[in-house]
């Protein structure tokens, strides 16, 4: 038959018909119970403040829940491995996008030694228009420096 053998390995026993792993009802209910438990846990944990770890804990619990749903309810456990690869690949590329963009924002306005000024939006320190005068920005015709620093942007 014209087909990719490995894609079918988990599905067909060679006769061309569809054969899948069928889990039991109690098994599915058990997964549901685990999911409810994790939900209760994540709500309970939210009443406590762990500082920066708050989000991490919440995300770990959410990922545990998502893994249960994907692996058992969505049958990834018993499917072709490539399906799992598709699923995970999406998260990998998403992670690349979020992490590098986030990283850019985190490093915005770091000290540029040529200018000696900072423009950190979060602390509201001097905006570009208010950097101290350097010889690079001096006015050539009058010999004066650039205009005095304005108030810049309030936070």
């Amino acid at each position, binding site marked *: *038959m*014209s*087909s*990719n053998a490995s*894609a*079918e390995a988990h*599905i*067909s026993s060679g*006769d*061309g*018909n*569809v*054969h899948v792993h*069928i*889990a039991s009802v109690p098994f599915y*209910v058990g*997964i*549901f119970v685990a*999911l*409810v438990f994790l*939900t*209760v846990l*994540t*709500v309970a944990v*939210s*009443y406590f*403040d762990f500082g920066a770890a*708050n*989000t991490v804990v*919440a*995300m770990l*619990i*959410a990922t545990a*829940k*998502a893994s249960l*749903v*994907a692996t*058992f*309810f969505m*049958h990834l456990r018993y*499917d*072709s491995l*490539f*399906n799992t690869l*598709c*699923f995970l*690949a*999406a*998260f990998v*590329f*998403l992670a690349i*996008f*979020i992490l590098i*963009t*986030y990283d850019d*924002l*985190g490093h915005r306005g770091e000290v540029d030694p040529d200018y000696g000024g900072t423009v950190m939006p*979060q602390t509201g320190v001097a905006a570009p228009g208010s950097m101290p005068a350097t010889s690079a920005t001096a006015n050539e015709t009058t010999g004066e420096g650039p205009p005095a620093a304005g108030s810049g942007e*309030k*936070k």
Partner: protein
Amino acid sequence: MTTVSETAHAGATHDDHDGHGDAHPSFLQHHFDTPAQQFAASKLGMWVFIATEILMFGGLFCAYAITRALEPQVYDQSHHFLNKILGATNTIVLLFSSLTAALAVRSAQVGKRNETSIYLVITILCACVFLVVKYFEYSHKFHLGLLPGHCFGHPGLSASVLPNGQEVGTCLRMGANPDSVTPLWVRAIDESGHEQLLPPRANMFFALYFVMTGLHGLHVIIGMSILTWVLIKNQQGKFSKAYFTPVDLGALYWHLVDLVWIYLFPLLYLVGKPE
């Protein structure tokens, strides 16, 4: 050596089966050779589609991460404006609907038509419950004026000045020169009716709340439609032990909807810092 050995047929079928004697099943499309090939292709197609949905919602999560980094205080106060219990209820409802969707697939896999329909109906009803809860949440927010962008602002509050001299507006564009680059602090009314003072960019939190839950809600509606269609086809007897692919794919879409909510819920509802 010939490249291509073809089974020459004079104008006959374009399907060949090895000799196991099965009649060509009615659900088997003409370009597939076997039901197993068709099933594998359908599942893979659905997973590729799920990957695209993850990336689409993921963009919103990126926006969330960035705006939260820019203005963490707003998110700390978000618990005043979002009801954790309603959110948790919705989470349990969706998880339960995921269970019934998985059970619907299981029933289809063993060929139990009526059981499949029952589970599908329960799943759709759970989706309705979810939407009803969402409706209450949204209408409460409309009432309080916690809306995105231009629409943000409670009619009962007025602009004023804080003790430290900072101007306060009821809308990010009111109370100051509209061309000013200074974002204002904003007064708003929270879930329990108290007045809260929100830092600038608070509007962005509510904007993201509506865009993310709104897009998710749209997917809930789409999922309900898909499951309804599957239910109708099931009632017409189109599915069997040998062919339950649409039930499987419909349930996969529903699980995706659930997956997105699993991440939305903690990030929007549980992120506030209790005082």
